[in-house]
């Protein structure tokens, strides 16, 4: 097997400012859409380069699915994650399957209620699904809450960019719900930082 650690670190040398994010959850949870939104925030609204890929099974719901977003300043060669700088996992299965190439010292964000077995000693545990329900009454907004947590903790894209990207993808009439979900995620990240 290739030594993923070695080339992951080396990727910083080949692509300027390369950052690798992986978003994983159950199929149907909207993590691929979250990846698209994150990539749009970077590529359209922050003026950087971004490439988004995904992997999912043949089923429409269930199973584990992931989206990957690579962000950089210039040309991005390899489009997939080599060594993730951050992983967001909203289900135990997704965490088990996709944590393997989280960079040493990388950021792991998990849904506190759903992911109980952690592959690394330190993770940021946020009750993402509960926050979504509290903020919007809709569990389906968990993916946008998760984006808020990620952006709040990392600043991988600007707050203005993620808000524009979320609203740009929100179906008509759901703008306020999505704005509330994003804010809930950003706020919880702020609370986390002050711990």
């Amino acid at each position: 097997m290739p030594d993923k650690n070695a080339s992951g670190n080396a990727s910083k040398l080949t692509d300027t400012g390369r950052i690798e994010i992986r978003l994983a959850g159950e199929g149907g949870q909207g993590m691929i859409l979250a990846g698209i939104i994150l990539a749009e925030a970077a590529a359209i609204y922050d003026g950087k380069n971004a490439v988004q890929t995904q992997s999912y099974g043949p089923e429409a719901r269930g199973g584990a699915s992931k989206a990957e977003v690579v962000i950089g300043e210039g040309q991005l060669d390899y489009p997939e994650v080599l060594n993730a700088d951050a992983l967001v996992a909203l289900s135990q299965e997704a965490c088990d399957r996709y944590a393997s190439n989280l960079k040493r010292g990388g950021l792991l964000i998990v849904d506190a209620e759903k992911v109980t077995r952690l592959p690394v000693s330190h993770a940021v545990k946020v009750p993402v699904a509960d926050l979504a329900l509290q903020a919007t009454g809709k569990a389906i907004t968990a993916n946008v809450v998760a984006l808020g947590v990620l952006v709040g903790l990392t600043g991988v894209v600007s707050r203005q960019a993620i808000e524009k990207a979320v609203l740009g993808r929100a179906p008509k009439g759901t703008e306020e719900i999505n704005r509330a979900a994003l804010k809930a995620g950003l706020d919880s990240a702020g609370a986390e930082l002050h711990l």
Partner: protein
Amino acid sequence: MTLKLMQGNEAVAMGALAAGCRFYAGYPITPSTEIAEVLSRQLPKLGGKFIQMEDEIASMAAIIGASIGGLKSMTATSGPGFSLMQENLGYAVMTETPCVVANVQRLGPSTGQPTSASQGDVMQARWGTHGDHPIIALSPTSVPQAFDLTVTAFNFSEKYRTPVILLLDEVIGHMRERFDMPDFENVQRVERLGVNVPPEWYKPYGDSVSDVPPMANFGDGYRYHVTGLFHDPMGYPTQRLDEIEAWIQRVNRKIERNLDEIILTEADGLEGAQTVVVAYGATVRSARHAVKLARQRRHKVGLLSLLTIWPFAEAEVARLAQNCRRIVVPEMNLGQLALEVERVAGRSKVRRVNLANGEMIHPQMILEAIEAH
């Protein structure tokens, strides 16, 4: 210009519209379905037609018919559907009907793994339909290039009256990238050579200076016969050896005489390279990464990216082989285009890097092949 985060399949659909495609017939299949989805929404707005057919055999037949009727036409599929299209693909070659077939490759054989990446249909694109025939196959390495090469595919198909295969892989088809899409009026389009003689003088498969006979659209008053049998200059079946031989020679010649235009490649650091990586499709992205790492370690490495994989870039590879010590050929299959590289460069010079489990080739695998002694 329109700045978007665009998917590869969407870029194919937009490229088709920009090239002037006005007819799509197909049967949806992962990982190509977004091409059909986008065209089903966009074609009607431009006065074009979209038909979801009963299967891929009929889809291929429909686009041939539409093209003979005068519309630039395409279909899109993946491995299982591409297998079904082979018979009519040969019919398009034989009748010299311009059309574009996008095959977004997934892991096979058979139903295989619909959402996994593969480059397993390289030889099928070349020889999937029977008989000696030329074919053009193009393979993009990015979303912007998926747009550009789709336009090129239409332009080649119209100029040379031949089916052109767009051979994507699941990675490029489903990947989203930043793309500043050009306005369609700024896209260079090639139109098929029309007829400028009255119907009674028209010879549909007659001699022509360029080996590409002018093409009359059905319905324009030029009655002629279209058949998959070998045919004479009027399009009627023939058993005359001289006419059969002349057809075979001409149809192959119209591609062979224009290799300089048809074979598209990108060269990176080939001058003085001791090792050259020859790659195509998504694997080019792995190769670029690996080549940069290798150069940081002071290896003299070049990269030849093949945007046109058929006809094979024989002259370019032969030239490389004279000047470098080793050629590395990474592919998401068990070694298909490597056979061509080996034929030209000699087996001892070629090191294959293969992966056929649905994953992209990791740059480290290519780096190891570059560094191996």
